[in-house]
């Protein structure tokens, strides 16, 4: 029993990480139609920004700075690189691919290729006892952050004017532009939100794995892609459900099966979902 609880909470912690990355990706894809390979870069940028100042500033301001830097990177990438290629989706994907290659190399040249030890608050290193299981407290940090982000995003999308524009844009972008609303501002907005969430995910991943490396974002990104596709492109709640399913499946199969079987089973889940419901769990129409 205690093993099951520990595995479930660890799986949920991982799911929280996937959700933070996938929700931004999903919004960006749903609205702007950009499959953002540079999302992993935002993750690493946020983590490294926080790591750099965490010694001198203390952890809380460092986390805020990391999120802000990642958000600014997202906005900058949209304004400078993505916007000129509006409606040319293949080129947009190619640019983000190039950016992910060049950006990770740039991080490597500044901070080196080796992993750095990432600081975490003292209480996150402690262990909590639940139903006989000794659960590291950082799991709760991740799960709490993800639930807060989910509620915040849903409230933002439901109750604010910008949220309305984004939801309408995901549904039918051309109609929104035809009504005289500049959708491109919403593009910048979703890139900024996506960047901020990725930055947060990068910092939390640093605390979870207690180290950061330039390539870390890219390896998490692939699972985030899988979560986005399973959840249905453009859907935040779909991404949440898919993240939970993927995180739990991966943890349990990895523990009870042979090493690596969990990762393989996640891909099998992806293939099954795509064949049965090509638009994902929450998908409405198949993306063109």
């Amino acid at each position, binding site marked *: 029993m205690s093993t099951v609880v520990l595995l479930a909470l660890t799986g949920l912690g991982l799911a929280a990480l996937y959700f933070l990355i996938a929700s931004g990706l999903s919004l960006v*894809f749903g609205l702007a139609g950009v*499959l953002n*390979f540079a999302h992993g870069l935002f993750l690493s940028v946020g983590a490294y920004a926080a790591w750099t100042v965490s010694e001198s500033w203390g952890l809380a301001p460092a986390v805020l700075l990391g999120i802000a830097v990642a958000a600014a990177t997202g906005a900058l990438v949209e304004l400078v*690189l993505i916007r*000129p*290629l509006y409606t040319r989706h*293949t*080129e947009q*994907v*190619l*640019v983000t*691919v*190039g*950016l*992910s*290659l*060049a*950006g*990770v*190399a*740039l991080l*490597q*040249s*500044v901070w080196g290729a080796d992993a750095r030890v990432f600081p975490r608050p003292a209480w996150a290193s402690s262990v909590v006892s639940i139903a006989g299981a000794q659960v590291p407290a950082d799991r709760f940090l991740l799960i709490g952050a993800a639930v807060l982000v989910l509620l915040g995003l849903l409230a933002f999308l439901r109750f604010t004017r910008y949220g309305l524009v984004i939801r309408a844009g995901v549904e039918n972008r051309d109609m929104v532009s035809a009504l005289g609303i500049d959708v491109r501002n919403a593009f910048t907005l979703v890139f900024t939100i996506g960047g901020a969430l990725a930055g947060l995910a990068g910092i939390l991943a640093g605390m979870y794995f207690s180290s950061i490396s330039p390539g870390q974002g890219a390896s998490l990104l*692939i699972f985030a*892609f*899988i979560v986005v*596709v399973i959840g249905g*492109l453009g859907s935040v709640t779909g991404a949440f459900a898919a993240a939970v399913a993927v995180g739990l499946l991966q943890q349990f199969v990895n523990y009870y099966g042979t*090493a*690596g079987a969990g*990762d*393989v089973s996640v*891909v099998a889940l*992806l*293939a099954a979902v*795509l*064949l049965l419901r*090509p638009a994902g769990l929450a998908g409405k129409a*198949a*993306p*063109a």
Partner: protein
Amino acid sequence: MLLVAVVLPWSTLSLPGLFEGPLNSPGTLQLLAICLVFAGLALGYDLLFGRAGLLSFGHALYVAAGAYGVDILVSHYGWQLWTAAAVTVPAAAVLAALLGSVALRTSGIAFSMVTLAFAQVGHIVINRDPGGLTGGEEGLPLSSAGLPAMFTGVVNTVNLYWLALAFLTVVVLVVHAIDRAPLGRTLTGLRDDERRIAVLGLSPYRLKLLAFVLAGTLAGLGGVIYALVVGGASPHIASSELTLSLIVMAVLGGAGTRWGAVVGGFLYAYLDQRLARLGGSLPGPFGEPLFVLGTLFILAVYFAPGGLASLGSRLEPLRRALRPRRPGDGHPAPVTDAV
């Protein structure tokens, strides 16, 4: 160009800065052989991407299948090279047929994601070293016991060069034959408007699967040659980064053109290796090959959307403007096929 490639191993010409040592030294020949293999791989990938318009993110899987397949059969089971290759390449084709038949039920971005996921499984499996077969993260060096004597030893590097050149020639012949055949035109039609092909009574699914299997087979063959040239297989060739670099090669050279991907692949592989060698001596981020290549790639997407192959026709108006005017020179020059 092909003539230069054939004459090259006899040349003792030394190009300081471009290559270390004369052109026929083993080090330079191996570097060139790797460039030739990547030129072939890039053109094979372009059959999917540039011609059929299928943005696959999992091409590395079939390259890895070829490289690891032949490596495992030769090094662990002591097979002869030729029998191992004769089994591995069809196996890569079967793998491509199986996975392609699933992946092609989706289209667009979903297709890219499914191929990425399949390739990722391959990468994970290779890294986990099942049964001690793949050597895990260390990679698996190719044991020389099963190799013909002509491919072992530093002196025989020139034979590896010939092998790589032969591979490139095969890929060029196959892809150009497809270009000329009705199949090539149908694939281009598929890229431009899939519905139209379906309305004409052809099956887009079967055509795409055919292209996928052909490209997978060429990739498997390329993997076999790659394992021979570098003397083993490492998990890097199964990673998504390899696929991404193939995309970069195709786009940089000019996707869908006759020679674009070949030029792009050759240049990319050359720069990747040379910059890694020069890495320490260049300032800051320029020491990272991927930084330079990634930046070049982004610039190419913006400023030369047709890749290197389109530069000729893009500069044509400029050249015409600079040419001195003669009577009767008013009509435009015939447009070359570089589109």
